């Protein structure tokens, strides 16, 4: 009887759920739209379509230096651009981390790059670590000048993630390369003689000097004069909550949100590690394997001993995809520890994890990896044999299985072609003009090109 009652209660719940799902549409509560989280007077004044762009820029710059959470909140909204944001963090006191994700849509207020430059400059003046995730994302802005200023703001927050972006922008057009050079000079205190009005020979010479400076930084141990202290968990409660929320976004439904969260956390580097560790623990408690799998992907990009430790932990995860992604990430990290660990992972009961491990061993290469690949039993799944062939080819630098792999480029099924091409491109650094959809004679040309590169 009690069981029947509970069952009826359950049914009622489902009916209510279904009615709720068939309600008035997205983001509405019984027909009433949720309050606009960016409707506070300060944010509205920065986005006011009733005034000119110049006035909005003046307003944005005027609040630079105000590190209050309200000012930072308004500036982050003004910073947004569809090219680098799928979601915005909207304050929400009902959420334990104090935020909810609001999907960002193009509404016309993202058209003016100078407003975004102003927002970055103002955020830099606030010195607030709460802006760190958003500035990392601004490195993907569709306008290079915004990217350059974000790189500068990030250095003050202890992150060098923007320097490769600045180096790349030196090769872009006037103003883009000019601001990149100016900011590199500000950051480093150096002058490499870059002249945006000079010919490309002279510019190339300066660009090479900048690249040498960047490559030499880890060796010399020099800190750029402008570089601030890297973020540490616990030093800013707002930043802590924002970063933790972004970690949780790795487990949500929208793939665009995953993409944004992954890019942000990967660029954050080592300071993100404690948040990722806590995210794994939260996701284990809640049973969210998607978050853990997302974290495994992020860890491929964080070059720090502690990230290897967390990857090793994820290799023992209950969910096979978390383990397979951890194996992939370990392969991207490389090194002797990775080979030893991945060799053990070849014995995982799930063929998908085996597949990731054997592919990763191929990527890392070396005698121990080759021995492990050779000894691998590929009988558990149809995809394993091809993966083993590709792994052996890659691990031996193209010495073994060459014809088999080149033959895969001519295979009937496109996934096999693509898998072979991926490894060939990685090994040779050349895409050989390969097009998966091209006619066979065109793909034969790619085979000849790869054969030449491998022979050479």
């Amino acid at each position, binding site marked *: 009887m009690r069981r029947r009652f509970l069952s009826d209660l*359950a049914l009622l719940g489902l009916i209510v759920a279904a009615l709720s799902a068939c309600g008035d549409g997205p983001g509405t509560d019984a027909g009433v739209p949720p309050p606009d989280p960016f409707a506070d007077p300060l944010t509205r004044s920065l986005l006011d379509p009733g005034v000119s762009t110049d006035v909005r820029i003046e307003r944005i710059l005027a609040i630079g230096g105000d590190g209050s959470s309200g000012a930072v909140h308004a500036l982050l909204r003004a910073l947004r651009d569809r090219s680098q944001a799928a979601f915005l963090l909207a304050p929400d006191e009902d959420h334990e981390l104090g935020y909810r994700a609001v999907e960002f849509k193009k509404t016309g207020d993202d058209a003016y790059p100078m407003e975004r430059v102003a927002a970055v400059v103002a955020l830099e003046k606030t010195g607030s670590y709460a802006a760190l995730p958003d500035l990392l994302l601004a490195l993907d802005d569709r306008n290079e000048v915004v990217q350059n200023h974000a790189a500068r703001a990030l250095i003050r927050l202890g992150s060098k993630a923007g320097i490769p972006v600045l180096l790349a922008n030196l090769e872009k057009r006037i103003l883009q390369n000019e601001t990149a050079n100016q900011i590199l000079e500000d950051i480093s205190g150096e002058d490499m003689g870059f002249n945006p009005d000079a010919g490309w020979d002279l510019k190339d010479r300066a660009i090479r000097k900048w690249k040498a400076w960047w490559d030499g930084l880890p060796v010399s141990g020099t800190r750029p004069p402008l570089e601030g202290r890297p973020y540490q968990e616990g030093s800013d409660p707002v930043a802590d909550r924002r970063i933790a929320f972004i970690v949780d976004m790795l*487990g949500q439904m929208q793939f665009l949100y995953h993409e944004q969260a992954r890019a942000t956390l990967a660029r954050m580097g080592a300071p993100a590690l404690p948040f990722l560790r806590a995210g794994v623990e939260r996701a284990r408690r809640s049973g969210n394997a998607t978050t853990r799998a997302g974290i495994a992907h992020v860890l491929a990009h964080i070059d720090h001993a502690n990230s290897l430790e967390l990857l090793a932990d994820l290799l023992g995860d209950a969910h096979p995809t978390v383990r397979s992604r951890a194996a992939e990430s370990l392969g991207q990290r490389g090194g002797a520890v990775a080979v030893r660990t991945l060799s053990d992972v070849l014995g995982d009961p799930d063929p998908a994890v085996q597949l990731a491990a054997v592919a990763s061993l191929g990527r890392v290469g070396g005698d121990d990896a080759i021995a492990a690949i050779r000894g691998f039993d590929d009988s558990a799944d149809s995809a394993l044999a091809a993966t083993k062939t590709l792994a052996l080819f890659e691990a031996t630098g193209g010495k073994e299985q060459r014809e088999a792999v080149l033959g895969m480029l001519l295979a009937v099924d496109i996934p096999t072609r693509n898998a072979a091409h991926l490894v060939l491109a990685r090994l040779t650094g050349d895409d050989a003009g390969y097009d998966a959809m091209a006619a066979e004679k065109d793909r034969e040309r790619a085979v000849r090109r790869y054969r030449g590169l491998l022979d050479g």
Partner: protein
Amino acid sequence: MTTKLIGLLVLVGASTFFVMHVMSPPDGTDGGPGADAQEWEPPGRSYRDPLPFSKSEDCKGCHPDVWSEWYDSHHRIAYTNPEVQKLSTGFQGKGLDCLPCHLSRPMFETGFGVRPLERLTRREDGVDCFTCHYWPEGNAMLTSGPLGGAASQAPCQPAVTPSMASLQLCAPCHNQHKVHEDWKETRFAVKGDGFKDCNDCHMPTVERPNAAGGIRRGRSHRFPAAHDPVVLREAAAVTQSLSARSLFVTVHNSGVGHNLPSDERHRAVDLHLVLDTGDGRPYDVRIERWRNPYRDEFEAVNPLPNPGDAYEKTVTVPELLADVGVRVKRVPAPHRPNRKVWYPASTQIPAGEKRELSITLPDGVKAVTVRLWYRTNPFQPDKDAVLLHEKTLPE
């Protein structure tokens, strides 16, 4: 407050349902799925044994008709489809994020409303039987029974949860592109006689022979949708009339339970005119395109953001050195006259809405053919696209 109360009730109800119908091993003490427990537990195996299957092919022996339907479906080629491989750049780089929905592990593993995870293996099976039916505790989950009789001896240990019919089973993948959000805005989502959900159109009822020689009703696993020309041609109703140089065309999203095309950003619906000037050459010109642009198409704007809006433009026919004058009006759907599209830059036609086009043809046009094309990606040539409508005027 009301929302929270409803939320709490839903949570309690759903959790209870989950525990009662799904999580708990059936004990045969009362009604519901547990009633058949003692019957349907296969001898010699415990209830929580893993399924003795590893691939969809293993389901074929007992379910050949369902298996054949799935085998011919686009779910099966979700990974291997050349078009998908091309558009996802071989599931590498940014395409990596497409993998979990094109080579999915069981939805029950990650849960409803959460994105699934990828499996890497059995790539030829794409979205397979296991994706929807595999319950990690060792059962094949079904929407409904019966579970007694022969089914009680089935090696897949069938169990029932009505949540299998829930839209939340489809949403983790298909709402990546807001298809469910679009559906919620339609008349089909209104409870009553006209109610239709995903299953009604994309898993229609079919009859198949059963093992005893009779007929059993079930749901199609062919998933008719954008790759089925018959279904596509029911999506839009087109009318046209010609008076001297004035052509009037309406395109009505009359048959779709979501936007036309759906909010899969690759899809496009194009209205073309083929002008006949009597010189024996067809002058084919695209008049309008309806689609949700890619995220990096920053220049794309929707000129008709609100129901009732209209805009004018000219379309040049270079070979004729002439312009076609076009005025487009957005006619709202009767059931939701204030509907806004989800993405401001999208020009998709929401369900029930019309686009009225008043077109002024160039001088010298003797006849005009109106064509409506459906393209599964915006780069698709006519030879690969589906012609939804064609009419030549004057008749």
